[in-house]
């Protein structure tokens, strides 16, 4: 196994691309909240990047990618990046082991950022830091191990090209659990909470789309035909999701820019697990269905009065679920050797469904328990007075 400089060049670039996604989640979310919580919302994402970066090199990478312990978790062989070096490693035949590690790092950070949707505009910053550290360790790291690190889901044959299950289902359902524990924002459903800065949200979406090329095409772990194919499927699924949500929501009102960018993210989420297994034409279908489906889920959430404030659950959680199933349906051997339902491989569909639903349950239940524990001890939520004043001033002493 020798280093391929082209593959290394692309994964270096991909890692940078995925890195920008974490602050981009902050801009996306920040534009959607009220002005008094804008800095807070961006900061939650950006702090996730720093915190998880440290956790990952110290222990997270080892828990996720260390040698398998009972199908559930990795061992501590890579503690403190022990045994992770400049040469190719177990997971990276063409690129340095350290590069594979840091490419995985940026996935862990963005997952944490997505979760903040469920606690928007009401979380106590100190409690968030503790929560984030624990969540990434006991929810994300095991899930990454199951699917990518040689855990039970991998052994069972579940396909997840770039993290539909590990990143999106986990963060989406974690956001759902969190919002149930922390409760609704004061005034939710009673008066209008208008987004404060739609152009900022669009900027976030543009950077997400941009970074997602690293996310999905980088997951080929090489600069080759598969990377190109994943690049193309990613782009058309996003485009199809964006247009589909736009058109679907037009039936109910006007074609809003927020509908467009939400659909783009839904399309990107849906294609994530499938990016390296399906054809571009299938990707258009997966993206378009993702856009309409997530839009419907969001409408349902609002009707139910659920304050999962920025729709991580509707878009990432449910979109990720759709993507996992779609991968089991539309995978074709010509792309990457794996066949799905349409090529008659029922087994693949079952494996993917099993992996996805296991992740749904694990992420939801463990997050719920963790959130309750933190709420009972440190307290997850700011006081009502602080919520009125806004988290920017109350928690960060800043305003914009």
């Amino acid at each position, binding site marked *: 196994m020798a280093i391929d400089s082209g593959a290394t060049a692309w994964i270096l670039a991909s890692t940078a691309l995925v890195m920008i996604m974490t602050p981009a989640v902050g801009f996306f979310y920040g534009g959607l909240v009220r002005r008094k919580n804008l800095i807070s919302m961006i900061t939650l994402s950006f702090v996730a990047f720093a915190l998880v970066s440290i956790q990952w090199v110290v222990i997270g990478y080892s828990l996720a990618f260390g040698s398998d312990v009972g199908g559930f978790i990795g061992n501590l062989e890579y503690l403190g990046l022990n045994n992770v070096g400049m040469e190719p490693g177990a997971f990276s035949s063409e690129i340095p082991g350290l590069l594979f590690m840091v490419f995985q790092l940026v996935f862990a950070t963005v997952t944490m950022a997505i979760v903040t949707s469920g606690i928007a505009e009401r979380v106590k910053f100190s409690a968030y830091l503790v929560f984030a550290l624990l969540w990434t360790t006991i929810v994300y790291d095991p899930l990454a191990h199951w699917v990518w690190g040689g855990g039970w889901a991998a052994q069972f044959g579940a396909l997840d090209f770039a993290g539909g299950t590990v990143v999106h289902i986990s963060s989406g359902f974690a956001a759902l659990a969190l919002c149930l524990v922390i409760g609704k924002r004061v005034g939710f459903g009673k008066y209008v909470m208008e*987004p404060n800065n739609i152009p900022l949200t669009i900027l976030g979406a543009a950077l997400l789309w941009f970074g997602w090329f690293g996310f999905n095409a980088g997951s080929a772990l090489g600069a080759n035909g598969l990377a190109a194919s994943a690049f193309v499927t990613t782009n058309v699924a996003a485009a199809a999701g964006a247009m589909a949500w736009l058109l679907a929501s037009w039936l109910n009102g*006007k074609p809003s820019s*927020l509908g467009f960018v939400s659909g783009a993210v839904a399309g990107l989420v849906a294609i994530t697990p499938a990016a390296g297994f399906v054809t571009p034409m299938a990707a258009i279908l997966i993206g378009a269905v993702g856009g309409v489906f997530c839009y419907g889920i*969001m409408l349902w959430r609002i009707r139910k009065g659920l304050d999962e404030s920025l729709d991580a659950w509707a878009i990432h959680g449910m979109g990720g679920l759709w993507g996992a199933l779609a991968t089991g349906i539309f995978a074709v051997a010509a792309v990457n050797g794996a066949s799905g339902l349409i090529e008659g491989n029922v087994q693949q569909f079952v494996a993917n469904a099993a992996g996805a639903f296991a992740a749904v349950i694990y992420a939801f239940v463990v997050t719920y328990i963790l959130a309750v524990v933190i709420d009972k001890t440190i307290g997850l939520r700011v006081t009502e007075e602080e919520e009125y004043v806004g988290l920017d001033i109350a928690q960060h002493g800043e305003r914009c």
Partner: protein
Amino acid sequence: MKLVKAIIKPERFEFVKKALEDKGFKGMTISEVRGRGEQKGIALEYRGGLMTVDLLPKIQIEIVVKATELDDLISTIMESAKTGKIGDGKIFVMPVEKAIRIRTGETEI
């Protein structure tokens, strides 16, 4: 002297300004406000469908004039601001006891 406070539609502002200039009303102070009256709010989208916003953006013009010019000023604003549709706005007239130009100390307008 009187303070005339006119709250008008933003899209009429350029017309009102022009009309005032033509009539020789130079001084004015404007601010961006939001208002509600008879006019129903507008429907906005926010991912999950419609929401109605009832405080709409308006431009507030404040002009201090001599009492003798008041009627002229009011009719100028009314003509130029009017669209005939709901939400055209209001004019309020209030007494001013004194006006001073900071630069010179003059108390004429």
